[in-house]
C-alpha cells in the first residue's frame, strides 16, 4: 500500500530524512514513532505531496507520489501536526468546502458531511463556527476533513498531541472505527506507549532513519527485553560488581556507594538465578529487584543505544 524507498530530505546541509525505507501493507495501522526532530513530519509531508524529496521513491497503491501528484492526492488524506481553521466558516461549511475541492457534487457532499460529523461525534456542533470549537474538537474536525474524499491511506501527524487523556481516548475510538473500515493509516507520535495498543505495526525513527520496525509484539520484545535491575548491598560493593560484570546477561553497570544498577537481558527465572549466585558468593544483599522503568525512558534508551 505505502512503500518508501531510500528517501532522503536535506534542509541545507542538515539531513532530516536519511535513506529511509518503510513499508505499510494494506489495512495496517502503522505507528511512526520517534523523538522530536527525528524526521516524522518531514517524511509525512513528502508522502502527502507537500514537500520535495531530494532522493528516493514513494508509492501509494503503486502510484508514484513524487511523479503523479494529482492522482496520489486523491487517495491520501493528510492531517498535519499543526493546522488552523478558517474562523469565518461553520462546521458543515468547512467540510463542504474541502469536499467541493475534491469535486464531489453538492448532494453527495451533504451526506458525506453528515456521516463524517457522526463519526467524529460533532453532529451537535454542525452550525457552530469552527473557531468556537475546543482544541480537541478542532482536531477531530480536521480528521474528518482528511476523510472527505474517502482516501485509502490516512497520514496523521501526531493527531493526539496536546490532547487531554479523554480526548485521546476519543481519538483512538475513531481510529479503531477507521481501521475496521479497512483504511490504511500511518500515524506518528513521539510517545511509544500511546500507539502500542492501537497499532498493528510500528517503526521507530531516529535522526531520519528507521531503527527498528515490525509488529507491535516484536517491537515490544525488542524494547522491553532489556530490564533494569537494582541491587542494594550492605558492603562488598566491588565484589558484587565483579560478580555481576562476569554474568553474561548483564549490560552496562552503574556503581553507587551501596548499590548497583545494571541492564539485564534475561527472563525472570534468570534474574532469580543471578540473585542466588550473589547470595551464594556471600554478598550481603539487602534488596534485589527490577527498576520501575518508565516506558518512555526505556524507549529513549533503546533508540539512543542503537544510534551509538
Amino acid at each position, binding site marked *: 500500500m505505502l512503500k518508501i524507498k531510500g528517501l532522503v530530505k536535506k534542509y541545507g546541509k542538515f539531513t532530516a530524512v536519511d535513506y529511509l525505507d518503510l513499508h505499510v501493507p494494506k489495512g495496517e495501522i502503522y505507528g511512526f514513532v520517534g523523538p522530536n526532530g527525528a524526521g516524522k513530519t518531514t517524511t509525512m509531508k513528502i508522502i502527502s505531496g507537500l514537500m520535495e524529496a531530494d532522493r528516493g521513491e514513494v508509492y501509494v497503491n503503486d502510484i508514484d507520489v513524487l511523479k503523479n501528484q494529482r492522482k496520489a492526492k486523491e487517495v491520501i488524506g493528510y492531517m498535519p501536526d499543526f*493546522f488552523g481553521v*478558517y*474562523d469565518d466558516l461553520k462546521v458543515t461549511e468547512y467540510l463542504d*468546502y474541502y469536499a467541493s475541492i475534491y469535486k464531489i457534487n453538492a448532494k453527495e457532499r451533504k451526506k458525506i458531511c453528515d456521516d463524517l460529523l457522526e463519526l467524529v461525534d460533532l453532529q451537535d456542533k454542525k452550525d457552530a463556527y469552527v473557531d468556537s470549537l475546543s482544541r480537541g474538537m478542532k482536531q477531530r474536525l480536521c480528521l474528518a476533513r482528511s476523510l472527505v474524499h474517502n482516501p485509502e491511506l490516512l497520514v496523521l501527524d501526531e493527531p493526539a498531541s496536546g490532547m487531554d487523556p479523554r480526548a485521546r481516548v476519543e481519538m483512538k475510538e475513531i481510529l479503531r472505527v477507521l481501521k475496521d473500515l479497512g483504511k490504511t493509516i500511518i500515524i506518528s507520535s513521539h510517545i511509544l506507549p500511546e500507539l502500542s495498543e492501537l497499532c498493528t505495526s510500528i517503526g521507530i525513527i531516529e535522526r531520519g532513519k528507521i531503527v527498528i520496525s515490525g509488529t507491535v509484539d516484536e517491537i515490544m520484545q525488542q524494547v522491553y527485553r532489556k530490564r533494569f535491575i537494582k541491587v542494594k548491598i550492605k558492603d562488598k560493593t566491588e565484589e558484587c560488581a565483579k560478580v555481576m560484570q562476569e554474568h553474561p546477561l548483564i549490560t552496562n553497570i552503574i556503581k553507587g556507594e551501596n548499590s548497583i544498577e545494571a541492564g539485564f537481558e534475561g527472563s525472570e527465572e534468570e534474574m532469580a538465578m543471578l540473585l542466588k549466585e550473589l547470595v551464594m558468593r556471600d554478598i550481603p544483599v539487602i534488596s534485589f529487584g527490577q527498576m520501575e522503568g518508565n516506558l518512555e525512558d526505556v524507549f529513549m534508551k533503546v533508540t539512543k543505544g542503537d544510534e551509538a
Partner: protein
Amino acid sequence: MMRINPVLQKELKIRMRGWRAAGMIGVYLIFMTLTASFALIMSMDDYYRSTIDPEVALGSYIGLAVMQLVLISFISPALTTGAISGEREKQTLDLLLSTPMTPLSVITGKLFASISQVILLIIASLPIFSIVFLFGGISVIELLQLFGFFIIIAITFGSIGIFYSSYFKKTTAANVMAYGTIAFLCFGTIFLTILYLGITRNYGYKGFFPFLYANPIIGFTSILWDQVGGGNVNIFPGLIFGNTAAASHISTWIINLLFNIILSIVLLILSAKKINPLKERHRGRFYLSRKGKK
C-alpha cells in the same frame, strides 16, 4: 457542467456575508457621491448659471473617474495581499495544497474573489456615473471603455498583491511591497524616464518614451484624453498625450492595457510556482542526472 473554482466560491461566500461587504459598498458610494457633488458645485459656482453645461458634465466625469482610480488602486491590492500569506499565517495553506487542486487554481480563485468584489463596487458606482449622460458629452461605449480599463487595473493591482502574498510570509510585508510596486509604476516610471533622458542629455526626445507605457496613471489619462478629444500635448520630452505622431498610431492606453494583462499573467504564474511545494523542473533534472550516473 462547469465547476466554479471552490476557492472562489468559498471566498465569495465569506466575503459577502455579514455587514462587511455592504459596508464597503456604502463607504465607496459615499466617496463617489461626494466627488460628484463636489465637481458639480465647483463648476456651478464658476458659471453661476442654471443652464445645463456639457463642461460641467465632463468635469464631474473626470472627477469621478479619478476618484474611482484612486479608490481601486488602494482597494485592489488590500483585498489580495492577505490571500496566501493569510492562509500561511492561519496554517491552512498546507491543507489546501494537500488536495488535488492545482496551485494555479488556488491563486486564480483567490484573485477572482477579490476582483469580483471590486467589480461589484464599480457596478455600484454606475448610477452615479450616469448623471453625466444627463448632460451629454460622453457615450455609453466610452463609459464601458473606462470601466473595462478599471477592471484590468484592478486585476493587475490584485495580481501584484497576490504575488507578494505568495512570496512573503507576512501579510504586512506583502502590503508594503505591493503598494511600493504600484507607487513605482505610477511615479517611479516617470522619475526614471526624466532621469534617463536627463543623463543622456536627450532633451529633445520626440515621441513617447516606451517605459511610460507601464504607467497606469498615464494609461488612464490617455483614455480620458482620447474621450474628451484633447489635442496633442507634450507634457515633457517623452510624455505626449494625443496623437504620438507615429505612423501606426495606437493609443497609449491600449498598450498600457496590454502591458497590464501580460504583467498579471506573469505574476499569477510566478505566484503559482512559488506556492507549489514541488518544483517540477528540479526533479526532472535530478532524474536525468541519476539515470546518467547508472
